[in-house]
């Protein structure tokens, strides 16, 4: 930068903003202090996020005898996780459940949320009430939600089976959470019910940020409502869809709280509700009945794999979607 330019810049600045000119010293001091402000945040972030991440990474390279660290064993824990029985079977079993989790959440939670948000956006009668109604479940704590649905799904006195009985549909009655074919799906649907309101909120904000003049221009050009939706609304909704997809992806691959609240840490019944996070919890901290031994090394290895997986796909997806964004 030449001296001339700099003064020019300063002149312009003076003209455009109302900052009082300062001495060089003061400006330097300001530059310094800027770096002091993030320190509390960095401390908390470093202590509770970055440090545990590195700790888990180092733990995964050691052999553990219970909770005592043994020798350095390199990648053995990772190898065991993928090759040793029953760990590898359980890993892929849980992995499949996470994929199912993601797929069903995308369809039932986000698909439905998109439609409902559109309905509210179009100002259907009662939309104000609907907005609140959809968001209500979200105000409960996950543990309460789990407990509530456990009661509803109870095979012998739960509301669902009682209703089926009143309707004369006894043949459809099931031990919803006790049958390995339905237990996981039941939990995922409860999770969709719980997350629906959040999706509606995000999509509604997306719809409301679509500039009216674009829609008017479309209407003037004689676009029918189908091409209005596919040509104008959906492309402009890409950012919201992107955010929701990423959030759902992360949430479904970290699915733990609701599964734990409804089925405990053993992935019961018969490993049919094991997700990677539940499986990790069992490996690293033992079971819920207090009598199980722990496998810290394997648990840490699993945590690292899970982290890398989520980070990699989230980054990839964001990169791909950024290309598809429409510049406004």
């Amino acid at each position, binding site marked *: 930068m030449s001296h001339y330019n700099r003064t020019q810049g300063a002149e312009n600045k003076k003209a455009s903003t109302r900052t009082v000119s300062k001495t060089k010293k003061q400006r330097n001091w300001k*530059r310094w202090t800027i*770096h002091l402000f993030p320190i509390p945040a*960095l*401390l908390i972030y*470093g*202590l509770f996020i*970055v*440090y545990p991440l*590195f*700790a888990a990474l180092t733990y995964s390279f050691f052999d553990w*005898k*219970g*909770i*005592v*660290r043994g020798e350095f064993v390199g990648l053995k824990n990772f190898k065991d996780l993928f090759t040793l029985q*029953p760990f590898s079977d359980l890993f892929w079993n849980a992995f499949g459940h996470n994929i199912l989790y993601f797929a069903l959440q995308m369809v039932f939670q986000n698909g439905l949320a998109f439609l409902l948000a559109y309905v509210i956006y179009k100002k259907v009668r009662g939309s104000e009430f609907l907005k609140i109604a959809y968001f209500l479940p979200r105000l409960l704590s996950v543990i309460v939600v789990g407990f509530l649905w456990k009661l509803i*799904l*109870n*095979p*012998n006195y739960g509301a669902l089976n009682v209703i089926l009985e009143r309707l004369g549909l006894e043949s459809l009655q*099931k*031990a*919803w*959470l*006790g*049958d*390995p074919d339905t237990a996981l799906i039941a939990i995922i649907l409860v999770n969709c019910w719980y997350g629906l309101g959040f999706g509606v909120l995000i999509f509604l904000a997306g719809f409301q940020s679509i500039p009216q003049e674009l829609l008017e221009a479309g209407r003037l050009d004689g676009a029918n409502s189908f091409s209005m939706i596919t040509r104008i609304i959906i492309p402009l909704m890409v950012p919201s869809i992107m955010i929701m997809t990423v959030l759902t992806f992360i949430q479904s691959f970290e699915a733990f709280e609701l599964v734990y609240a409804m089925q*405990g840490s*053993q992935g*019961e*019944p*018969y*490993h049919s509700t094991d997700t990677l996070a539940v499986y990790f919890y069992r490996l690293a*901290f*033992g*079971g*819920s*009945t*207090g*009598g*199980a*031994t*722990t*496998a810290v090394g*394997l648990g840490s290895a699993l945590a690292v794999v899970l982290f890398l997986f989520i980070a990699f796909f989230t980054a990839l997806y964001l990169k791909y979607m950024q290309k598809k964004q429409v510049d406004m």
Partner: protein
Amino acid sequence: MKKMKAFTFIGFLAFILILSGCSSESGGDASGDSDSGEDSVTLTIGSWRTEDKASYQEVIDKFQEENPDINVEFEPSKNTEYNTILNTALKSGEGPDIIHLRPYAPGIELADAGYLEPLDDLEGLDKFAEDTLAASKGSDGKQYGVPLNISTTQMFYNKKIFDELSLEEPKTWEEFISLNETLKKGGYTPISLGSKEGWLLSLSHGIIGPAHYGGNEFVDKITAGETDFTSEEFQTSIDAMDELKKYFPENYEGLGMEDIRTMFFTGDAAMFPLGSWEIEVLREMNPDLELGFFPMPSAVGKDPTITTWVDGSYAVNANSEHKEAAKKFVQFMTTEEFGKLFTEEFKMISAIPGIESDDQLVNDLSKAVEEMSTPYMMLVHFSGGNPTTKATLETELQGMYLGERTPEEVAKAIQESAASWYEPLQ
């Protein structure tokens, strides 16, 4: 500006390194005893029994009558969190002075890691049965814990329902089966058991199993490696679990602990295969419940059995600053006086033999324990391995009840799990 970014980044890295340096891996820096005896010391007790806080206070008050210079604080954590909290504390050289030890494998794991103080020189340990001491004996043969209480698992039954159908406590397996039939015809659920929570299955196998594999003889043989889990004796115990499912409630595969307990104390179900700790809960839920129990009659012509194990022991933290005071307290836990107080206050069976209880049911139970006890084999001997053999039994039985596994496959899977870590079976 570029320079600034680099500076921040380096600063951040340095900061992370400092953080990582903060975590010390101190295995044990025994600082010795700082008990000068002049001023009072404060001991903490760690435990998973949050529900016993008031009862422990009684015990502590009694102890302080004789040791006014030792303050004791009972600081329990939630049952499911206890192991995690304790392990984390021990790893950083902290933790309570007196530790409530989980029985068998998990507790012994802590002893072997060097976190506990050996207690061999403690007076009063000779009172306990050898089996009872084994729950907290380290692999080095030293004693690391004072056994606290014996838990039992057995068939509870509702006396009212039995009287109504004029049923007797069964003396043979055939009688037990016909009793189930009678109950079913009488419109009751015979056995209140659900398979949604795996631990209930290993617990009920703990009751039913010995009647078929033949109690202690089989346990001695298998721990000596003279037989295995695919043997005829053990196979019949799994078959029996399968046979009984027709006496379970409707939709039993979807029922958990709360459900089956409710079915029993409301009088829908006649029998309840569960642990002694449920006595207090059941009475609280339904004070009018006429609760009885019977030992499991043998199917192979042996004596009836009550299944028992040590539920917990108390140990002294090797890193404690007041080891001598802590030893005084666990020593107090070996006395008859403590045993009596414990039985009265906690309504549990003390690990100290020969303590009478004023509660008829608890008293009958402790008598039965002294006469016909058989170990809860899966917990006592097979709670090692990863996943533990006990957990494998739970999962496999669940699979059997869901129709995914045959009883033969169950026994085979248990054998495979045990052979992976249990030396006598290798």
